[in-house]
């Protein structure tokens, strides 16, 4: 019996397949070959690099971090001088990049949304102008736009003595954009605290309101009350702190302005170029998101008796945002990556500082490696957020 079974299996399976026809074994061979080739190229480059480094007597490693940088940085959010270390100089670069990216993203979102909505306006003139803006801005390289705005700031704008003064307290000069800010006062700290407190209160309130509605069916005007809390608490804190109204107005002294807040021409040009360029792409995304919602959705919501505000909040926005958010985050990432063009107009962002470091120390590999790691970190954290968001908002299909 046992003999027969083994016989029959021998009959059905033909002679052993040669290993090069076996898909699993073949896959293993392919992968070994590819990995081997990649490894060999890597080894070749590595040994070449090592030989070159030895010949040029460049020490590898990050020992230069602790050395004195001995170069000045035009603008810095933290105290910095040429006597500080390279590590601190690079930190200044990262902070400058984050500053541009953060302010740029906020302004881009606002401007892009306005233009995207304008593109769909029933007003022919507004819609056409928005269309022209989108087309023109998308089709001109962002670097050229940066050079353009920068050249305007140093060629056309006057010196501080003949500063343009379009609004009270705002001055346009070739030294930058200077405007009045409220004078430092402890009340501003209280206001910030009050705002944070307000955020927590709004969060708690919306949870409570949702639970109550689920239990009793009674709605609560969460939106209006939240606005009142978010605006009211800081205003109350401001009154409590003595209602300071004094402004720090820039005054011309000698050859330059004193006081107020100065944005350097480099920063202004960079911000302007990035925001105007990226806003065109954001506008297209917003337009596509709004157009993606079928009319039937709005009509169905209205026929269910929802108020216009509720239609927007409960029906339109959740669906539009699902379409809008993924491409939007990639545009925000593009803005951050494009901010590296700062190096071309002399704003000390991370790439610019790293570039100076490479030139001074000769640590090319470490320098370029750092640039890549920093931007990879930004983009990987962005895509981690995206994945989380996509999971949260994915359609539940049955």
């Amino acid at each position, binding site marked *: 019996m046992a003999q027969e079974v083994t016989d029959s299996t021998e009959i059905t399976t033909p002679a052993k397949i040669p290993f090069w026809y076996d898909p699993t074994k073949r896959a293993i061979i392919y992968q070994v070959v590819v990995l081997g080739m990649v490894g060999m190229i890597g080894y070749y480059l590595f040994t070449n690099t090592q030989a070159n480094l030895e010949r040029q007597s460049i020490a590898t490693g990050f020992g230069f971090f602790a050395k004195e940088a001995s170069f000045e940085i035009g603008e810095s959010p933290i105290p910095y001088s040429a006597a500080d270390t390279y590590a601190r100089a690079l930190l200044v670069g990262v902070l400058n990049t984050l500053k541009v990216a953060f302010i740029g993203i906020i302004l881009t979102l606002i401007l892009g949304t306005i233009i995207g909505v304008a593109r769909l306006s029933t007003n022919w003139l507004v819609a056409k102008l928005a269309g022209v803006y989108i087309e023109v801005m*998308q089709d001109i390289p962002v670097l*050229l736009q940066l050079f353009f705005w920068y050249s305007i700031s140093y060629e056309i704008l006057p010196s501080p003595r003949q500063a343009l003064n379009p609004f009270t307290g705002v001055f346009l000069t070739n030294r930058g954009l200077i405007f009045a800010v409220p004078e430092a006062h402890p009340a501003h700290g209280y206001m910030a605290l009050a705002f944070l407190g307000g955020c927590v209160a709004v969060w708690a309130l919306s949870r409570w309101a949702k639970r109550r509605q689920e239990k009793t069916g009674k709605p609560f005007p969460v939106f209006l009350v939240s606005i009142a809390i978010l605006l009211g608490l800081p205003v109350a804190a401001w009154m409590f702190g003595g209602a300071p109204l004094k402004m720090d107005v820039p005054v011309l002294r000698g050859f330059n302005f004193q006081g107020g807040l100065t944005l350097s021409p480099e920063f202004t040009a960079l911000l302007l170029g990035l925001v105007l360029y990226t806003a065109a792409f954001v506008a297209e995304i917003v337009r596509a998101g709004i157009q993606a919602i079928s009319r039937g959705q709005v009509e169905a919501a209205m026929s269910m008796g929802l108020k216009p505000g509720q239609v927007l909040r409960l029906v339109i926005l959740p669906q539009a945002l699902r379409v809008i958010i993924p491409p939007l985050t990639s545009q925000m990432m593009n803005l951050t990556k494009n901010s590296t063009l700062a190096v071309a107009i002399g704003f000390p962002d991370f790439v610019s500082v790293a570039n100076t470091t490479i030139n001074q120390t000769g640590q*090319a590999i470490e320098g370029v490696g750092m640039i890549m790691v920093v931007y990879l970190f930004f983009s990987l954290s962005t895509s981690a957020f995206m994945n989380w968001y996509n999971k949260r908002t994915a359609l539940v299909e049955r």
Partner: protein
Amino acid sequence: MVDSSQSIQSEQLKPPITRIGVIGWVHANLFSSVFNSFLTIVTLYFLWKIVPAFVRWAFIDSSWNTTGAACRAAGGACWSIVAKNFRFIIFGFFPYESHWRPLLAMIILFTLLFISRNRRYWKKWLGYVWLSGLFVMGLLLKGGLFGLPPVESTKWSGLPLTLLLSVFGLTAAYPLGVLLALGRQSRMPAIKSLCIVYIETIRGVPLISLLFMSSVMFPLFLPEGITINNILRAQVAIILFTAAYIAEVVRGGLQAISRGQYEAAESLGLNYYQKMRLIILPQALKIVIPPSVGILISAFKDTSLVVIIGLFDLLKTTQATLSDPRWMGFSVEAYIFIALIYFAGCFSMSSYSRRLERELYRGT
């Protein structure tokens, strides 16, 4: 009785005068509500403020073919900076008497692009025409054959360099991108993860870091005594960068092909290469032509970044002109001129891509 009712019916009632013709159009499109009227008036006010001033600056007070000093005296736009330096801005340092060579190369390129717009010509021969066209263009720039005096690649500059970097970049990046996309779809874990790591790394870092890599790290990678010129190094960086983006676009195309196509190919007994080459890729690559044009547009715009590593592309030759003391202070005019060149290129490509998308979508 019957007659009179018929006559009323046949005498058609015209719509009110405010609903038709110019007045109707203006009413519906500009003044349909209070808010719209307000918007229109504000916009018109700004246009009235800006447009006449711009026209005055750009056309009425402008000088078109004078010296820099005369421009300063005239006060308006100085288009003379473009007129007087036109050949330098476009051709850069290419030997003056040989300018016809890059010009001819560009004419060949534009002719090829023009022919390729027509989908009827998308046959195998067009691919060969392109390959030989690219070869002729390279020969025209480089010289050294058929009695053309050789021109060093350090002298390649201006618009031909911009076009060279973007067109050759895309052509060389496409096969690499397709391989990466196939690798990413592969069932072999080692190959798949290699491709994913490559694509995600490149897409995560800015192009400028790759250009820096090509200019400062590349020389360290090569054995002693071997040097590669700047343009080729930048070209390699652009190819490596573009390939990752092409890979993602092609992956979209591969995923859009229905499973049935894969299964049908397998049940016909085709192996992996036959399946991909004969069934899947021809369909997938056709779908991704419109997004590929998008990549060509961004490659065209992104080549301007080579300015930062010191190559003399269109943007850099313009800046070199601007650093001439005779022409200092006319950046706006010069930048507007090259912005027009970039705009013309990108706009024609993007409107073509949109038209193509519509045609392919209709399935005609």
